[in-house]
């Protein structure tokens, strides 16, 4: 029987992403910049049987924070530009990764840390790098997290995207099916080293069997409010409100409110992916922004209040 079109398309997207990964890794190698290939091929190699496809269409790289300039130079040389100029997000919650885009449609997410990790980026890098293994991607040697590292990333990814993101939940279910408890114990130790235990538990808990695993590992249940908001799939403004509440000083808070009400084009593209499609889509996003805010504000405030009540 012929392969389903969706499977063929997913495999082709993965191949396109791998080709870009090869290009980027090659350029980084020339510059002597080490990196870790996260998710896509790492999850597929660890959790999927040979010949099975795990859909992915972009490249996720973790790099040493001190290498950021060299990584940016490498990406610019290959024709990538950052989706959002970080200066446009001044005052907002710092991003854990920067998305770089190119006309061929494959994007590269450069991570200097992992969502959910409270430790300094250098600690995250050293921890994951010390748990890395080699993988050949498109004929080029890449470095990916080991099995415990992948278990950690799968749980943190589930915490980042929350209960509503089926692909992350599918990865987590597969990881829970395939990995022995000992690997989850190792993953929990890695989580502790990067101060991500709360996010690790929140990620595991998006699946009932993950909650059971967290209980068996006897992990603390206290979870930071922002992690709880993400994991519960809270409305988009909830995290913004939480960040606003943590921003010190009336002046800084006012500035944040103004920049949220009247965002820069870069911020608009970062928050509302449809605005990335072109000038017309961006204009439409601006036109509907007041409605978008009004629509999400009440439910976001409720979600924040609920998360605060239940967070440890």
């Amino acid at each position, binding site marked *: 029987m012929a392969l389903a079109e969706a499977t*063929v*398309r997913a*495999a082709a997207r993965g*191949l*396109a992403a791998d*080709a870009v990964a090869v290009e980027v890794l090659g350029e980084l190698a020339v510059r002597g910049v080490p990196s870790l290939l996260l998710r896509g091929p790492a999850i597929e190699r660890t959790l999927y049987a040979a*010949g099975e*496809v795990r859909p992915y269409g972009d490249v996720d790289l973790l790099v040493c924070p001190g290498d950021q300039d060299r990584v940016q130079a490498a990406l610019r040389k290959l024709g990538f530009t950052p989706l959002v100029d970080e200066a446009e997000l001044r005052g907002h919650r710092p991003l854990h990764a920067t998305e770089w885009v190119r006309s061929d449609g494959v994007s590269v997410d450069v991570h200097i840390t992992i969502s959910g990790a409270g430790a300094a980026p250098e600690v995250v890098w050293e921890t994951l790098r010390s748990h890395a293994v080699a993988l050949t991607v498109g004929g080029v040697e890449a470095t990916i997290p080991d099995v415990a590292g992948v278990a950690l990333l799968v749980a943190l990814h589930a915490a980042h995207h929350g209960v509503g993101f089926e692909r992350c939940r599918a990865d987590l279910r597969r990881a829970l099916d395939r990995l022995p408890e000992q690997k989850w114990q190792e993953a929990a130790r890695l989580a502790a080293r990067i101060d991500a235990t709360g996010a690790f538990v929140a990620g595991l808990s998006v699946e009932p069997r993950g909650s059971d695993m967290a209980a068996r590992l006897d992990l603390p249940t206290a979870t930071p409010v922002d992690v709880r908001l993400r994991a519960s799939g809270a409305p988009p403004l909830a995290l913004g409100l939480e960040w606003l509440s943590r921003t010190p000083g009336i002046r800084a808070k006012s500035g944040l409110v103004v920049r949220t009400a009247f965002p820069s084009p870069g911020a608009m593209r970062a928050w509302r992916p449809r605005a990335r499609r072109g000038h017309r889509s961006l204009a439409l996003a601006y036109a509907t922004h007041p409605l978008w805010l009004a629509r999400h504000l009440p439910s976001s405030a409720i979600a924040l209040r609920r998360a605060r009540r239940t967070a440890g």
Partner: protein
Amino acid sequence: MTERTFQLRDDELEWREVEGEIVALDLRESTYLSVNKTGTALWPHLTAGASRDELVAVLASRYGVDTEAAARDVDAFVRTLDEKGLLAS
């Protein structure tokens, strides 16, 4: 006269096996294709380079068909690859 060797392009062409079939991505044209079981049997030989006779022998032996039927399948498959620009010139 030397028999032509058929070989897949070695640049901007990526592929992988999925559930026993090949999915190939032509990065030059930004197109992809899935290759049926017959083509998948021939694929590794086309990667290395093989003559028509060798390809026919592969199919005949793999599927236990006569050389005439195998030759028809090989010709059709190689023609498709050629039309898509996937063979080395």
